[in-house]
């Protein structure tokens, strides 16, 4: 202990202090002091040592160092500018990204007592089978509120887009429909709220749980006015429920009470046809867990890691530059050393220089970050996907700020970087032996420096290359993922397809509109628009609406036991739907106009469903029983089989699927799909006016081309590809500059040697090879280390990649080839200079 403390004390006092402490320790021991006294004494010794150390860094000396550093840096403005710019950009980017990660990962939701906030999910599933989360209906929610005591202040909410029709042009707005209890639960002030005329004013900047809402509507008033009957329908389920754990109640206790309540739902609310085979339950999930989005979080961490890799490469690069500068300043160091400056003094001077550089970079970086966090943070939060399944937002973009945590991060980063790129050159320079320097001049030291300086420069280069390999391999993974996502077969043609959704209301139905007939009318009107090749209603891939029902019997295997029931994704479609989609027929026929309400029920199956339901026989002409009104008994006849269509996002697993005629299974809500001859979005006005003629007040939402929709689902991987690619190129550039510097430096150092070789008859080729060999060797070692590193590092991208494994040999080979090419190019220029050395001049030098 005493020895360690003594190391801290500046050299000239060290011996004195140590002897003094030892004497006192002896005294303490003979006086037989307790352990407490001994501890006090040791603490005292450490305080003493640290105080002496601090005194060693006298302020005036420090200021002198800083002034000297500033002068030195100002003398080479190019180097300083490049260094500060690199540091500012990479520190700024890391800090801005860290603030996003900080908000997404470390910060609690911005509500009072966030630990007690929970989301309550309804669960449905097959007996003994997997349970799927589902939404709440108003009657069930009322029952939950009355009976469950462990979760209080329950509130229901859902996000919708709605069309404002009475204020001129229809405008689509984001609406959050909620029960009045939501605002007190979340501690948000709603002012001037009127009871029925709906619109109140919430705090400025509050965008709701989904982060997008502009208008809030109390659930009861909306449904009373717009969708009557909904408040009483126990099976019209489409909102989420949030609540607060009662004081002192654990989440496990709440879970057991809520699950028990969930189990009674089936008995309490008689189920519609088909659904009676389900069993029900409910679960409690903490808000933090419910709003987590692993893929978004992983991508943020990946970006942060990438930026820090760039920062590390930049640091290694700067260390290399400083090392080269250190070599040229060897004489200065030697002179100062011979005038009495201790090694510590020299190291301190050089460290002050690097820390000053880092500090300037850090200040600019922080400034950049505080500007960038608003732009970049909000953009990233959007692009990387923030909404989780329960329509909760993972990141509150408005809350992105440079708080103390972010500041600490930036501060630590700056200090660490400054030390990292300063320490090695400082150590090298301080090793200068003044006598040999002053005596021997350049050549004597040149020989000495080569063994030390070059090897540490090589080490720096190896680490830069290795880090670049890791970064580039991550970028290549994301690029492959994006390409895979864009080219993966979806089972339908995504070009020239206009999509939208609309929904009739129960009021429409009560006023005598038959949904099936209405949908067919819509399709007919669309087909009449010039430029439309085909049109149909049905599920819009990546856009809904979605129904999943049960298959509980098929002709080949009648009377399946409940455990054998399978889920199937079903959609009512218009005639010619498969042809419109461009789906591939395997067997049988499309849905036709003759498949009407009064004819035999028919179904077209996707390949997976057909193979699973009829493993041994030809499905065409056989019957399956579906848990849907009219399809249970005697069931529907299979008339066609198509290749599976991807109904979710491109990287979702393919589901079993069935298509039924819209006239036979009308639903209020549907998607609209229009195949066009040209640009689909050019037909939007025509489509809207055709709809307006048929039903002026009907809100047509989510209108966009399939390409736009698909682009929306791949935006995360595209953004990641772009950013990682950008960082990768930056890394390549830094590596090239670093390598060029290293080789050029070594050529300068070896001028005499190369000249000697040339004079002894070495031809230009062999001289160039000699120089190139060094660059290539360093690069190859770096690539080797980098490949090993990247197989480890890319595992963390597991959540994000699609269609490739995280270790992708093809991509790695590509990355290594690019790096090697860049390295060769960077080494070639100085190598060529090496071959042009005039032997006479080189030998005459010095």
């Amino acid at each position, binding site marked *: 202990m005493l020895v360690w403390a003594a190391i801290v004390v500046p050299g000239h006092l060290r011996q*004195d202090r140590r*002897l*003094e402490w030892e*004497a*006192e320790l002896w*005294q303490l021991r003979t006086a037989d002091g307790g352990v407490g006294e001994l501890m*006090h*004494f040791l*603490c005292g010794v450490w*305080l003493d040592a640290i105080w002496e150390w601090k005194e060693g860094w006298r302020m005036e000396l420090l200021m002198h160092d800083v002034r000297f550093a500033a002068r030195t840096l100002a003398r080479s403005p190019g180097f300083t500018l490049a260094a500060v710019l690199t540091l500012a950009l990479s520190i700024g980017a890391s800090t801005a990204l860290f603030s996003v990660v900080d908000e997404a990962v470390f910060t609690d939701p911005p509500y009072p007592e966030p630990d007690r906030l929970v989301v309550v999910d309804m669960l449905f599933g097959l007996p003994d089978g997997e349970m799927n989360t589902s939404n709440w209906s108003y009657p069930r929610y009322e029952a939950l509120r009355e009976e469950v005591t462990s979760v209080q202040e329950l509130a229901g909410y859902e996000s919708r887009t709605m069309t404002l029709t009475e204020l001129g042009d229809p405008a689509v707005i984001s609406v959050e429909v909620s029960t009045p209890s939501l605002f007190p639960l979340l501690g948000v002030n709603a002012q001037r709220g009127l009871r029925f005329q709906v619109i109140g004013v919430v705090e400025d900047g509050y965008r709701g749980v989904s982060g997008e809402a502009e208008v809030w509507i109390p659930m009861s008033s909306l449904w009373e006015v717009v969708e009557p009957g909904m408040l009483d329908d126990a099976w019209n389920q489409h909102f989420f429920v949030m609540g607060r754990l009662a004081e002192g109640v654990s989440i496990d206790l709440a879970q057991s009470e809520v699950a028990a309540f969930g189990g009674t739902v089936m008995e309490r609310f008689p189920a519609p046809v088909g659904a009676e085979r389900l069993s029900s339950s409910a679960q409690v999930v903490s808000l933090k867990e419910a709003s987590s989005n692993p893929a978004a979080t992983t991508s943020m961490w990946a970006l942060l890691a990438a930026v820090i890799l760039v920062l590390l490469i930049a640091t290694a690069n700067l260390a290399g530059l400083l090392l080269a500068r250190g070599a040229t300043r060897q004489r200065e160091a030697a002179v100062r050393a011979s005038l009495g400056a201790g090694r510590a003094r020299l190291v301190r001077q050089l460290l002050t220089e690097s820390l000053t550089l880092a500090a300037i970079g850090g200040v600019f970086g922080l400034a950049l970050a505080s500007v960038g966090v608003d732009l970049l943070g909000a953009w990233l939060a959007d692009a990387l996907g923030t909404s989780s399944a329960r329509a909760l937002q993972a990141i509150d973009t408005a809350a992105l700020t440079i708080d103390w945590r972010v500041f600490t991060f930036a501060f630590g980063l700056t200090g660490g970087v400054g030390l990292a790129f300063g320490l090695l050159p400082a150590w090298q320079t301080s090793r200068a032996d003044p006598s040999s320097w002053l005596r021997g001049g350049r050549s004597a030291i040149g020989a000495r420096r080569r063994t030390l300086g070059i090897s540490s420069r090589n080490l720096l280069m190896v680490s830069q290359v290795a880090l670049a390999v890791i970064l580039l391999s991550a970028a290549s993974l994301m690029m492959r993922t994006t390409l895979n996502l864009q080219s993966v077969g979806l089972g339908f043609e995504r070009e020239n397809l206009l999509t939208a959704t609309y929904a009739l209301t129960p009021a429409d139905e009560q006023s005598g509109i038959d949904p099936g007939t209405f949908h067919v009318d819509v399709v007919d009107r669309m087909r009449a628009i010039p430029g439309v090749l085909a049109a149909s209603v049905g599920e819009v891939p990546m856009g809904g609406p979605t129904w999943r029902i049960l298959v509980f019997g098929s002709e080949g295997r009648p009377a399946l036991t409940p455990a054998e029931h399978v889920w199937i994704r079903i959609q009512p479609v218009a005639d010619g739907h498969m042809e419109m989609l461009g789906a591939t027929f395997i067997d049988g026929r499309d849905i036709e106009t003759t498949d009407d309400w009064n004819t035999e029920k028919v179904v077209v199956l996707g390949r997976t469903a057909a193979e699973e339901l009829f493993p041994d026989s030809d499905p065409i002409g056989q019957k399956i029983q579906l848990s849907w009104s009219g399809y249970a008994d005697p069931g529907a006849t299979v008339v066609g089989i198509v290749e599976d269509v991807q109904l979710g996002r491109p990287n979702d697993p393919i589901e079993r699927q069935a298509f039924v005629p819209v006239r036979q299974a009308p639903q209020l809500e549907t998607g609209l799909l229009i195949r066009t001859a040209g640009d689909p979005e050019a037909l939007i006005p025509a489509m809207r006016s055709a709809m307006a003629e048929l039903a002026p007040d009907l809100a047509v939402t989510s209108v966009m081309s399939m390409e736009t929709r698909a682009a929306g689902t791949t935006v995360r991987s595209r953004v990641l590809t772009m950013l990682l690619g950008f960082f990768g190129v930056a890394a390549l550039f830094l590596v090239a500059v670093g390598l060029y510097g290293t080789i050029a430096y070594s050529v300068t150092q070896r001028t005499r040697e190369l000249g000697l070789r040339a004079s002894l008859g070495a031809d230009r080729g062999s001289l160039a090879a000699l120089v190139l060999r060094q660059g290539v060797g360093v690069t190859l070692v770096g690539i080797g280390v980098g490949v090993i590193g990247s197989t480890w590092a890319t595992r963390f991208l597991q959540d994000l990649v699609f269609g490739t494994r995280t270790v992708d040999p093809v991509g790695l080979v590509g990355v290594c080839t690019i790096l090697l090419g860049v390295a060769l190019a960077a080494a070639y220029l100085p190598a060529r200079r090496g071959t042009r050395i005039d032997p006479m001049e080189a030998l005459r030098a010095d």
Partner: protein
Amino acid sequence: MSRALGVTTVLILTAVDRGVCYGLDIVNRTAMLPGTVYTTLRRLERRDFVRGQWEDAEVAEKERRPRRRYYELTPDGEKALESARAHFAALGVDVASQLSTVGAGE
């Protein structure tokens, strides 16, 4: 005298004034923590108020213990202590009375 001395400093100066002292002895007499005592002593040494000196090797040898570092007041220190005492006396505080005699042996 540019700066008035604090109670801690005055206490330690007083202790040194009352007899030749070494670090642990001051710790025991003032009942302050070793860390405070050491750093204060260093500060006083730098301001030239006290001077640390190693005791004769022979004395230590005779008493079979390591050599101690003793501190004594310099003329500057005496002056400073005197004016500080006057300052505290004017405030009605007798700093010296806080010195414990326990462990003030030798």
